[in-house]
């Protein structure tokens, strides 16, 4: 009988790559791969860990093309539960087929993997639009976001160019990651910061009112179609999209 073995890694990307490299070397067939944080022991299954080895992780990464690396990083940032095992098979196959793998959509790991990766790029793109900054009284732009996938690293690249002369902070509320930008440099902080109560710029209220006002007048009453609106701007994002705040509160009551 095949043994059902779940392999555990330590929650970082490089750790996952190190594990996958060892699995490939040992010709092990994982049943599933889980991060330590998410792993729940079940009856009838056993789990295994390997020691982290940065050398073989790097060696494996060097064998992958830029395009493949980009794809697996996107997959890694996804919220999908099976992403690790998909990444494992994706890497294994791309060692064999190289960049042809992107045309092998009949392989499950390829169409699943590219779907996961696309989902992450799509959400990143959406948040290029849906992120809302508020101006604090110390001239810092501050935004809170609640994305499904862990997109803050991809998103920050966009704002690094767009708002290059501003100071800004984006906080992923669910994951407690702060991304801070000043003078061309991005800093990530992964801890609970002791944030003082936020004080907003004196004009912040007026600008928000202008925006909400504009948002309401620009809609054409005769064409109202809230279902369509919701499918393009899903409700799960409304909490931090300020023009939807009022709608959100009303529907909560």
């Amino acid at each position, binding site marked *: 009988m095949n043994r059902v073995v779940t392999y555990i890694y330590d929650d970082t990307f490089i750790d996952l790559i190190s594990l996958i490299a060892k699995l490939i070397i040992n010709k092990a067939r994982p049943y599933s791969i889980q991060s330590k944080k998410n792993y729940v022991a079940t009856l009838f299954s056993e789990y295994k860990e390997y020691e982290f080895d940065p050398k073989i992780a790097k060696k494996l990464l060097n064998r992958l093309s830029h395009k493949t690396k980009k794809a697996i990083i996107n997959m890694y940032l996804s919220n999908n539960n099976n992403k690790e095992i998909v990444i494992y098979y994706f890497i294994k196959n791309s060692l064999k087929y190289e960049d042809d793998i992107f*045309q092998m959509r009949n392989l499950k790991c390829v169409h699943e993997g590219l779907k996961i990766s696309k989902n992450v790029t799509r959400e990143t793109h959406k948040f290029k*639009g849906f992120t*809302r900054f508020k101006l604090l009284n110390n001239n810092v732009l501050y935004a809170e976001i609640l994305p499904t996938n862990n997109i803050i690293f991809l998103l920050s690249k966009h704002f690094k*160019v767009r708002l290059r002369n501003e100071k800004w902070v984006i906080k992923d509320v669910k994951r407690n990651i702060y991304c801070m930008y000043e003078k061309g440099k991005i800093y990530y902080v992964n801890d609970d910061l002791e944030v003082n109560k936020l004080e907003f710029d004196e004009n912040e209220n007026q*600008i928000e009112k202008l925006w909400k006002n504009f948002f309401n007048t*620009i809609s*054409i009453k*005769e064409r109202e179609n*809230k279902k369509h609106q919701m499918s*393009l701007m899903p409700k799960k994002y409304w909490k931090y999209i300020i023009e939807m705040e009022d709608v959100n509160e009303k529907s909560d009551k």
Partner: protein
Amino acid sequence: MDVQEKLQILSDSAKYDASCSSSGSKRASKKGLGNASISGICHSYSNDGRCISLLKILLTNACIYNCEYCINRRSNNIKRATFTPEEICYITVNFYKRNYIEGLFLSSAVIKNPDYTMDLIINTVSLLRNKYNFNGYIHAKAIPGASSSSIKKLGQLVDRLSANIELPSEASIKLLAPSKNEKSVTKIMQQIKENKNKNFVPAGQSTQMIIGATNDSDYDIINKSSQLYQNYSLKRVFYSAYIPINQSSLLPTLTIPPLKREHRLYQADWLMRFYGFKAKDLLEKDDNFNLLLDPKITWALKNLNEFPKEINKVNYYELLKIPGIGPTSAKRIIKCRKKFKITFLDLKKMGVVLKRAKYFITCDNQYYFKRDNFNKNFIEKKLILEERPKYEQMRLFE
């Protein structure tokens, strides 16, 4: 009048312009604030489900013209307002910093005369670009009748220019907008086309037509569009379902805007730009589109002798003619079939809309249904049944 009230009046007057795209330009961020994103970014969606990416406002709504369909016509008794350039810059920069918008869409009613109006627009945009170092996307209106020197000036400052043709035939323009004429609009389009380069209107020009205000048929409309695309290399033609704002004996008394018709025209527009269809392939003279089935299916049913097409053999352009297959999935099919033989199951994984495509294709000589089902009656009936839930989603009859 405070900024709050002005914004209310001047965005209310601007909302009937359908264009909202912010794509096609990659203006770099340089020293100042912002940049343009080549793919365009939608920042919000209003209650009518249309995307908001640009701050869509008029500079003024005090118009000298009296066009029948327009909310801002001279004889309408509405509140009039005019923004100062500084006010527009203030709102744009502050919205942009907070990531509410992708840029500015500045249009205007014609005040005094076309050249005077253009000067006002140029002043505003130039202030925004030069004093505030704003590098975000700007779409401005080119006012028909303006001099070529002012078009040249404005074109160097903005990402997109547009001049609205509004109606597909000269006769309709005479009827509803007697102070405009088609020539003055096409003259502007010609000038923009001649000057276009990477520093002049990098995102190209667009125009708009109103749908359902006159008796023009869908054929007239798409035929006009295809001429415009050809003659003036337009980036986009927008279609805007007519919404009765003014009461006039010249205008139809619609109660519901013809949204489904507008949707069909957009589909046809896409077919002409990305799928290699011609206007005369899609419709006979004076015909309208079938509201039950989309233009591509209608075309395929009419030309059923060209089908079923074999997925593993036919070339790219043939693939594009199959309902349910678009440029992306067609390219994928071409690449993938070099590596393996494609089956119906694989097609779904490639993003093909199988529920439409399955009637028109064979995979390795297999048809999805029994072979004798390949006839017009069977396919049409099935497809109309499949389209139905979508019809409800559009909420046309509620």
